[in-house]
Protein backbone atom coordinates (compact mmCIF):
# COMPACT_ATOMS: atom_id res chain seq x y z
CA UNK A 1 0.00 0.00 0.00
CA UNK A 2 1.11 3.53 -0.60
CA UNK A 3 2.51 5.92 1.96
CA UNK A 4 0.87 9.30 2.49
CA UNK A 5 2.09 11.68 -0.19
CA UNK A 6 4.12 14.75 0.61
CA UNK A 7 2.28 17.96 1.19
CA UNK A 8 3.17 19.36 -2.22
CA UNK A 9 1.86 16.36 -4.12
CA UNK A 10 -1.26 16.40 -1.98
CA UNK A 11 -1.92 20.07 -2.66
CA UNK A 12 -1.48 19.48 -6.34
CA UNK A 13 -4.04 16.71 -6.13
CA UNK A 14 -6.45 19.01 -4.35
CA UNK A 15 -6.06 21.72 -6.95
CA UNK A 16 -6.60 19.20 -9.72
CA UNK A 17 -9.70 17.91 -7.97
CA UNK A 18 -11.22 21.34 -7.53
CA UNK A 19 -10.47 22.30 -11.11
CA UNK A 20 -12.00 19.06 -12.34
CA UNK A 21 -15.10 19.73 -10.28
CA UNK A 22 -15.37 23.17 -11.81
CA UNK A 23 -14.82 21.98 -15.35
CA UNK A 24 -17.36 19.22 -14.90
CA UNK A 25 -19.89 22.08 -14.99
CA UNK A 26 -18.46 24.70 -17.29
CA UNK A 27 -21.42 26.81 -16.34
CA UNK A 28 -19.77 27.39 -12.99
CA UNK A 29 -16.82 29.04 -14.61
CA UNK A 30 -18.82 30.99 -17.13
CA UNK A 31 -21.18 32.18 -14.45
CA UNK A 32 -19.11 34.82 -12.68
CA UNK A 33 -18.29 36.17 -16.10
CA UNK A 34 -21.89 36.23 -17.18
CA UNK A 35 -22.79 37.82 -13.90
CA UNK A 36 -20.13 40.42 -14.49
CA UNK A 37 -21.41 41.06 -17.99
CA UNK A 38 -25.00 41.31 -16.91
CA UNK A 39 -24.37 43.62 -14.04
CA UNK A 40 -22.34 45.77 -16.37
CA UNK A 41 -25.42 45.92 -18.52
CA UNK A 42 -27.44 46.93 -15.47
CA UNK A 43 -25.41 50.02 -14.82
CA UNK A 44 -26.24 51.93 -17.96
CA UNK A 45 -29.85 50.85 -17.45
CA UNK A 46 -29.90 52.13 -13.92
CA UNK A 47 -27.68 55.14 -14.25
CA UNK A 48 -28.52 56.40 -17.68
CA UNK A 49 -26.35 55.69 -20.68
CA UNK A 50 -24.45 58.99 -21.22
CA UNK A 51 -21.06 57.68 -22.45
CA UNK A 52 -18.80 60.29 -20.88
CA UNK A 53 -20.38 59.87 -17.48
CA UNK A 54 -20.06 56.13 -17.79
CA UNK A 55 -16.41 56.45 -18.69
CA UNK A 56 -15.77 58.54 -15.61
CA UNK A 57 -17.30 55.88 -13.44
CA UNK A 58 -15.99 52.87 -15.29
CA UNK A 59 -12.99 52.16 -13.02
CA UNK A 60 -15.10 52.16 -9.89
CA UNK A 61 -17.98 50.28 -11.43
CA UNK A 62 -15.77 47.57 -12.91
CA UNK A 63 -14.05 47.04 -9.60
CA UNK A 64 -17.29 46.99 -7.66
CA UNK A 65 -18.66 44.32 -9.95
CA UNK A 66 -15.49 42.26 -9.74
CA UNK A 67 -15.83 42.40 -6.01
CA UNK A 68 -19.47 41.40 -6.03
CA UNK A 69 -18.91 38.51 -8.36
CA UNK A 70 -16.15 37.29 -6.09
CA UNK A 71 -18.42 37.69 -3.11
CA UNK A 72 -21.08 35.59 -4.79
CA UNK A 73 -18.76 32.66 -5.35
CA UNK A 74 -16.68 32.74 -2.21
CA UNK A 75 -19.39 31.00 -0.22
CA UNK A 76 -18.94 27.92 -2.38
CA UNK A 77 -15.25 27.32 -1.70
CA UNK A 78 -15.81 24.85 1.13
CA UNK A 79 -19.60 24.53 1.13
CA UNK A 80 -19.84 21.49 -1.13
CA UNK A 81 -17.11 19.65 0.72
CA UNK A 82 -18.76 20.37 4.03
CA UNK A 83 -22.14 19.16 2.89
CA UNK A 84 -20.94 15.84 1.54
CA UNK A 85 -18.46 15.10 4.32
CA UNK A 86 -15.26 15.61 2.33
CA UNK A 87 -14.21 18.35 4.70
CA UNK A 88 -14.10 15.93 7.62
CA UNK A 89 -11.74 13.79 5.60
CA UNK A 90 -9.58 16.77 4.72
CA UNK A 91 -9.25 17.73 8.37
CA UNK A 92 -8.15 14.22 9.23
CA UNK A 93 -5.50 14.15 6.52
CA UNK A 94 -1.96 14.24 7.86
CA UNK A 95 -0.87 17.07 5.57
CA UNK A 96 -0.88 20.60 7.03
CA UNK A 97 -4.25 22.27 6.70
CA UNK A 98 -2.53 25.57 5.95
CA UNK A 99 -1.40 24.20 2.61
CA UNK A 100 -4.63 22.38 1.80
CA UNK A 101 -6.54 25.58 2.42
CA UNK A 102 -4.19 27.43 0.15
CA UNK A 103 -4.78 24.81 -2.53
CA UNK A 104 -8.55 25.35 -2.36
CA UNK A 105 -8.12 29.10 -2.54
CA UNK A 106 -5.77 28.76 -5.44
CA UNK A 107 -8.24 26.63 -7.37
CA UNK A 108 -11.02 29.07 -6.58
CA UNK A 109 -8.99 31.95 -7.92
CA UNK A 110 -8.09 30.01 -11.05
CA UNK A 111 -11.74 29.46 -11.92
CA UNK A 112 -13.16 32.81 -10.85
CA UNK A 113 -10.49 35.49 -10.61
CA UNK A 114 -8.29 34.60 -13.54
CA UNK A 115 -11.05 34.41 -16.16
CA UNK A 116 -12.25 37.78 -14.97
CA UNK A 117 -8.79 39.24 -15.43
CA UNK A 118 -8.53 37.81 -18.90
CA UNK A 119 -11.90 39.06 -20.04
CA UNK A 120 -11.81 42.41 -18.27
CA UNK A 121 -10.51 44.36 -21.30
CA UNK A 122 -13.68 43.45 -23.15
CA UNK A 123 -15.88 44.71 -20.36
CA UNK A 124 -13.75 47.83 -20.03
CA UNK A 125 -14.47 48.63 -23.64
CA UNK A 126 -18.18 48.07 -23.05
CA UNK A 127 -18.13 50.75 -20.37
CA UNK A 128 -16.07 53.17 -22.49
CA UNK A 129 -13.05 52.96 -20.26
CA UNK A 130 -10.25 54.93 -21.96
CA UNK A 131 -7.63 52.70 -23.51
CA UNK A 132 -4.98 53.94 -21.12
CA UNK A 133 -6.77 52.32 -18.23
CA UNK A 134 -7.15 48.85 -19.64
CA UNK A 135 -3.73 47.45 -18.74
CA UNK A 136 -3.98 48.94 -15.27
CA UNK A 137 -7.41 47.36 -14.89
CA UNK A 138 -6.15 43.91 -15.84
CA UNK A 139 -3.07 44.15 -13.64
CA UNK A 140 -4.92 45.50 -10.63
CA UNK A 141 -7.55 42.79 -11.04
CA UNK A 142 -4.82 40.17 -11.28
CA UNK A 143 -3.44 41.10 -7.89
CA UNK A 144 -6.70 42.23 -6.35
CA UNK A 145 -8.88 39.22 -7.16
CA UNK A 146 -6.25 37.00 -5.57
CA UNK A 147 -6.53 39.00 -2.37
CA UNK A 148 -10.30 38.82 -2.59
CA UNK A 149 -10.18 35.04 -2.96
CA UNK A 150 -7.90 34.71 0.03
CA UNK A 151 -9.98 36.97 2.24
CA UNK A 152 -13.24 35.46 1.01
CA UNK A 153 -12.01 32.03 1.97
CA UNK A 154 -11.70 33.17 5.58
CA UNK A 155 -15.36 34.08 5.60
CA UNK A 156 -16.22 30.84 3.86
CA UNK A 157 -14.28 28.79 6.39
CA UNK A 158 -15.91 30.52 9.34
CA UNK A 159 -19.46 30.14 8.06
CA UNK A 160 -19.35 26.77 6.33
CA UNK A 161 -20.78 24.92 9.30
CA UNK A 162 -23.83 27.14 9.52
CA UNK A 163 -27.03 26.50 7.72
CA UNK A 164 -27.56 29.38 5.30
CA UNK A 165 -24.17 30.95 5.71
CA UNK A 166 -24.64 32.56 2.32
CA UNK A 167 -25.58 36.00 3.49
CA UNK A 168 -23.60 36.08 6.69
CA UNK A 169 -20.43 35.75 4.74
CA UNK A 170 -21.00 39.04 3.00
CA UNK A 171 -21.27 40.79 6.34
CA UNK A 172 -18.01 39.24 7.47
CA UNK A 173 -15.87 39.87 4.47
CA UNK A 174 -17.18 42.96 2.68
CA UNK A 175 -15.48 45.29 5.18
CA UNK A 176 -12.23 43.46 4.55
CA UNK A 177 -12.67 43.84 0.81
CA UNK A 178 -12.81 47.61 0.98
CA UNK A 179 -9.08 48.41 0.90
CA UNK A 180 -8.71 46.28 -2.22
CA UNK A 181 -11.56 48.13 -3.85
CA UNK A 182 -10.08 51.50 -2.99
CA UNK A 183 -6.63 50.77 -4.31
CA UNK A 184 -7.87 48.79 -7.27
CA UNK A 185 -10.17 51.47 -8.57
CA UNK A 186 -7.66 54.19 -7.71
CA UNK A 187 -5.09 52.35 -9.77
CA UNK A 188 -7.31 52.36 -12.83
CA UNK A 189 -8.28 55.96 -12.19
CA UNK A 190 -4.62 56.89 -12.00
CA UNK A 191 -3.86 55.20 -15.30
CA UNK A 192 -6.75 57.02 -16.96
CA UNK A 193 -5.56 60.37 -15.72
CA UNK A 194 -1.95 59.64 -16.63
CA UNK A 195 -0.54 59.25 -13.12
CA UNK A 196 1.95 56.37 -12.65
CA UNK A 197 0.25 53.23 -11.43
CA UNK A 198 3.34 51.63 -9.91
CA UNK A 199 2.68 52.61 -6.30
CA UNK A 200 -0.88 51.32 -6.43
CA UNK A 201 0.16 48.00 -7.83
CA UNK A 202 2.90 47.83 -5.23
CA UNK A 203 0.36 48.32 -2.47
CA UNK A 204 -1.91 45.67 -3.93
CA UNK A 205 1.10 43.38 -4.15
CA UNK A 206 1.91 44.04 -0.51
CA UNK A 207 -1.67 43.23 0.45
CA UNK A 208 -1.41 40.02 -1.53
CA UNK A 209 1.76 38.94 0.27
CA UNK A 210 0.21 39.67 3.62
CA UNK A 211 -2.95 37.80 2.67
CA UNK A 212 -1.03 34.77 1.39
CA UNK A 213 0.90 34.61 4.62
CA UNK A 214 -1.99 35.08 7.03
CA UNK A 215 -5.27 34.13 5.37
CA UNK A 216 -4.57 30.37 5.19
CA UNK A 217 -3.87 30.41 8.93
CA UNK A 218 -7.28 31.90 9.59
CA UNK A 219 -8.85 29.50 7.08
CA UNK A 220 -7.32 26.50 8.78
CA UNK A 221 -8.47 27.66 12.19
CA UNK A 222 -11.91 28.47 10.82
CA UNK A 223 -12.35 25.06 9.24
CA UNK A 224 -11.39 23.23 12.41
CA UNK A 225 -13.92 25.28 14.31
CA UNK A 226 -16.68 24.99 11.74
CA UNK A 227 -16.57 21.23 11.58
CA UNK A 228 -17.50 21.30 15.24
CA UNK A 229 -20.26 23.93 14.97
Amino acid at each position, binding site marked *: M*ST*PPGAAAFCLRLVR*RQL*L*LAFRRPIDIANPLVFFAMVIALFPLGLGPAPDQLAAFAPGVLWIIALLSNLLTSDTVFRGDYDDGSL*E*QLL*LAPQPLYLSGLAYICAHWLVTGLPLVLISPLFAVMLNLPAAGILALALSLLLGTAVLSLVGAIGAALTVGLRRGGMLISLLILPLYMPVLIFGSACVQAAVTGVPTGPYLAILGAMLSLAIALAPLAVAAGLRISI*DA
Partner: protein
Amino acid sequence: MTPPAPLLAARSLTLSRGGRELFRDLSLAIGPGDLVQLEGPNGVGKTSLLRILAGLSRYGYEGAVERSGALLYLGHKSAVKAQLTPRENLALHVGGEGSHGDAAIEGALAEVGLYGYEDVPSHTLSAGQQRRVNLARLYLCSSPLWLLDEPFTAIDRAGVGQLQSLFVQHVEGGGAVLLTSHQPLAVDYPVRALTLSQGSAA
Protein backbone atom coordinates in the same frame (compact mmCIF):
# COMPACT_ATOMS: atom_id res chain seq x y z
CA MET B 1 3.81 -11.56 25.88
CA THR B 2 3.28 -7.86 26.59
CA PRO B 3 0.07 -6.49 25.17
CA PRO B 4 0.64 -4.59 21.92
CA ALA B 5 0.80 -0.80 22.20
CA PRO B 6 -2.68 0.61 21.70
CA LEU B 7 -3.49 2.41 18.46
CA LEU B 8 -5.98 4.57 20.26
CA ALA B 9 -6.37 5.31 23.93
CA ALA B 10 -8.97 7.50 25.56
CA ARG B 11 -8.86 8.43 29.20
CA SER B 12 -11.84 9.48 31.30
CA LEU B 13 -13.90 11.11 28.58
CA THR B 14 -16.89 13.06 29.81
CA LEU B 15 -19.36 14.69 27.48
CA SER B 16 -22.59 16.56 28.00
CA ARG B 17 -24.67 17.84 25.14
CA GLY B 18 -27.80 19.91 25.29
CA GLY B 19 -27.88 19.59 29.07
CA ARG B 20 -27.72 15.78 29.09
CA GLU B 21 -24.69 13.90 30.22
CA LEU B 22 -23.92 11.35 27.51
CA PHE B 23 -21.03 9.57 29.13
CA ARG B 24 -18.76 10.13 32.09
CA ASP B 25 -15.26 8.92 32.78
CA LEU B 26 -15.26 6.66 29.79
CA SER B 27 -11.88 5.12 29.07
CA LEU B 28 -10.97 2.73 26.35
CA ALA B 29 -7.96 1.42 24.51
CA ILE B 30 -7.93 -0.17 21.11
CA GLY B 31 -4.97 -2.15 19.93
CA PRO B 32 -4.07 -4.32 16.95
CA GLY B 33 -6.47 -7.19 16.53
CA ASP B 34 -9.42 -5.46 18.17
CA LEU B 35 -12.81 -5.58 16.51
CA VAL B 36 -15.02 -3.35 18.61
CA GLN B 37 -18.69 -2.73 18.08
CA LEU B 38 -20.11 0.36 19.73
CA GLU B 39 -23.74 -0.21 20.55
CA GLY B 40 -26.59 1.64 22.13
CA PRO B 41 -29.98 3.11 21.36
CA ASN B 42 -30.48 6.19 19.20
CA GLY B 43 -29.15 9.38 20.66
CA VAL B 44 -26.98 7.76 23.27
CA GLY B 45 -23.78 9.35 22.00
CA LYS B 46 -22.11 6.87 19.67
CA THR B 47 -21.44 9.35 16.89
CA SER B 48 -20.32 11.99 19.36
CA LEU B 49 -17.85 9.55 20.87
CA LEU B 50 -16.52 8.47 17.52
CA ARG B 51 -15.95 12.06 16.45
CA ILE B 52 -14.06 12.78 19.62
CA LEU B 53 -11.91 9.69 19.14
CA ALA B 54 -11.22 10.66 15.53
CA GLY B 55 -10.19 14.15 16.58
CA LEU B 56 -12.98 15.95 14.76
CA SER B 57 -14.71 17.26 17.85
CA ARG B 58 -12.32 19.42 19.76
CA TYR B 59 -14.53 21.47 22.02
CA GLY B 60 -16.89 20.80 24.84
CA TYR B 61 -15.65 17.48 26.25
CA GLU B 62 -13.31 16.57 29.04
CA GLY B 63 -10.65 13.91 29.01
CA ALA B 64 -7.80 13.02 26.71
CA VAL B 65 -7.43 10.98 23.56
CA GLU B 66 -4.15 9.62 22.26
CA ARG B 67 -3.79 8.36 18.76
CA SER B 68 -0.74 6.69 17.34
CA GLY B 69 -0.57 6.40 13.62
CA ALA B 70 -2.99 7.13 10.83
CA LEU B 71 -6.67 6.44 11.12
CA LEU B 72 -9.52 6.16 8.68
CA TYR B 73 -12.84 7.66 9.70
CA LEU B 74 -16.03 7.14 7.73
CA GLY B 75 -18.97 9.06 9.10
CA HIS B 76 -22.66 9.45 8.41
CA LYS B 77 -21.87 11.61 5.40
CA SER B 78 -20.34 9.73 2.55
CA ALA B 79 -17.68 12.17 1.28
CA VAL B 80 -18.50 11.21 -2.29
CA LYS B 81 -18.49 14.02 -4.82
CA ALA B 82 -21.65 13.80 -6.86
CA GLN B 83 -20.12 15.35 -9.96
CA LEU B 84 -17.12 13.04 -10.06
CA THR B 85 -17.13 9.45 -11.16
CA PRO B 86 -16.31 6.74 -8.65
CA ARG B 87 -12.88 6.39 -10.22
CA GLU B 88 -12.16 10.08 -9.85
CA ASN B 89 -13.55 10.10 -6.36
CA LEU B 90 -10.98 7.56 -5.31
CA ALA B 91 -8.10 8.96 -7.33
CA LEU B 92 -8.59 12.52 -6.09
CA HIS B 93 -9.58 11.79 -2.55
CA VAL B 94 -8.98 14.48 0.04
CA GLY B 95 -8.32 11.97 2.79
CA GLY B 96 -4.59 12.42 2.58
CA GLU B 97 -3.63 8.90 1.63
CA GLY B 98 -1.26 8.26 -1.25
CA SER B 99 -2.43 8.30 -4.83
CA HIS B 100 -3.50 4.89 -5.99
CA GLY B 101 -2.73 3.32 -9.31
CA ASP B 102 -5.58 2.86 -11.74
CA ALA B 103 -5.48 -0.91 -11.38
CA ALA B 104 -5.79 -0.65 -7.61
CA ILE B 105 -8.78 1.63 -7.93
CA GLU B 106 -10.50 -0.63 -10.42
CA GLY B 107 -9.87 -3.55 -8.17
CA ALA B 108 -11.35 -1.80 -5.16
CA LEU B 109 -14.40 -0.70 -7.11
CA ALA B 110 -14.92 -4.21 -8.37
CA GLU B 111 -14.67 -5.49 -4.79
CA VAL B 112 -17.54 -3.25 -3.70
CA GLY B 113 -19.66 -4.29 -6.65
CA LEU B 114 -19.28 -1.19 -8.75
CA TYR B 115 -17.77 -2.96 -11.74
CA GLY B 116 -19.24 -1.22 -14.75
CA TYR B 117 -20.04 1.95 -12.83
CA GLU B 118 -16.47 3.26 -12.63
CA ASP B 119 -17.05 6.09 -15.04
CA VAL B 120 -20.58 7.35 -14.50
CA PRO B 121 -21.14 10.49 -12.43
CA SER B 122 -21.68 9.46 -8.86
CA HIS B 123 -24.97 11.31 -8.51
CA THR B 124 -26.58 8.85 -10.87
CA LEU B 125 -25.77 6.02 -8.47
CA SER B 126 -28.29 4.64 -6.00
CA ALA B 127 -28.03 5.38 -2.29
CA GLY B 128 -26.27 2.13 -1.56
CA GLN B 129 -23.92 2.44 -4.50
CA GLN B 130 -22.84 5.88 -3.36
CA ARG B 131 -21.94 4.54 0.03
CA ARG B 132 -20.05 1.75 -1.65
CA VAL B 133 -17.85 4.25 -3.46
CA ASN B 134 -16.77 5.48 -0.09
CA LEU B 135 -16.35 2.00 1.33
CA ALA B 136 -13.98 1.19 -1.51
CA ARG B 137 -11.44 3.26 0.41
CA LEU B 138 -11.25 0.45 2.92
CA TYR B 139 -9.64 -1.68 0.23
CA LEU B 140 -7.12 1.01 -0.63
CA CYS B 141 -6.15 2.66 2.59
CA SER B 142 -3.25 1.49 4.68
CA SER B 143 -4.29 3.06 7.98
CA PRO B 144 -4.28 0.45 10.73
CA LEU B 145 -7.17 1.96 12.67
CA TRP B 146 -10.66 2.21 11.19
CA LEU B 147 -13.39 4.22 12.87
CA LEU B 148 -16.66 3.53 11.07
CA ASP B 149 -20.00 5.14 11.88
CA GLU B 150 -22.81 2.85 10.71
CA PRO B 151 -20.92 1.49 7.71
CA PHE B 152 -23.79 -0.81 6.76
CA THR B 153 -26.31 1.98 6.12
CA ALA B 154 -28.08 1.40 2.79
CA ILE B 155 -25.89 -1.62 1.98
CA ASP B 156 -27.64 -4.79 0.84
CA ARG B 157 -27.31 -8.12 2.60
CA ALA B 158 -24.53 -9.52 0.43
CA GLY B 159 -22.61 -6.30 0.86
CA VAL B 160 -22.92 -6.41 4.63
CA GLY B 161 -21.54 -9.93 4.71
CA GLN B 162 -18.64 -8.99 2.53
CA LEU B 163 -17.80 -5.95 4.64
CA GLN B 164 -17.83 -8.04 7.77
CA SER B 165 -15.31 -10.45 6.36
CA LEU B 166 -13.18 -7.51 5.31
CA PHE B 167 -13.18 -6.27 8.88
CA VAL B 168 -12.09 -9.66 10.14
CA GLN B 169 -9.33 -9.79 7.57
CA HIS B 170 -8.17 -6.33 8.63
CA VAL B 171 -7.99 -7.09 12.32
CA GLU B 172 -6.37 -10.44 11.69
CA GLY B 173 -3.69 -8.57 9.78
CA GLY B 174 -2.91 -6.47 12.83
CA GLY B 175 -5.36 -3.63 12.27
CA ALA B 176 -8.18 -2.51 14.48
CA VAL B 177 -11.80 -1.63 13.75
CA LEU B 178 -14.19 0.37 15.89
CA LEU B 179 -17.63 0.54 14.35
CA THR B 180 -21.12 1.51 15.33
CA SER B 181 -24.03 -0.45 14.01
CA HIS B 182 -27.50 -1.39 15.10
CA GLN B 183 -27.17 -4.80 13.43
CA PRO B 184 -25.32 -7.58 15.23
CA LEU B 185 -22.14 -8.69 13.48
CA ALA B 186 -22.17 -12.23 12.17
CA VAL B 187 -18.47 -12.97 12.14
CA ASP B 188 -16.19 -15.76 13.23
CA TYR B 189 -14.03 -13.57 15.38
CA PRO B 190 -14.40 -12.32 18.93
CA VAL B 191 -16.22 -9.01 18.79
CA ARG B 192 -15.69 -6.68 21.72
CA ALA B 193 -19.00 -5.01 22.45
CA LEU B 194 -18.93 -1.55 23.95
CA THR B 195 -22.42 -0.65 25.00
CA LEU B 196 -23.36 2.90 25.78
CA SER B 197 -26.48 3.47 27.75
CA GLN B 198 -28.12 6.57 29.14
CA GLY B 199 -25.58 8.25 31.40
CA SER B 200 -23.16 5.34 31.22
CA ALA B 201 -19.67 5.18 32.66
CA ALA B 202 -18.54 2.21 30.58
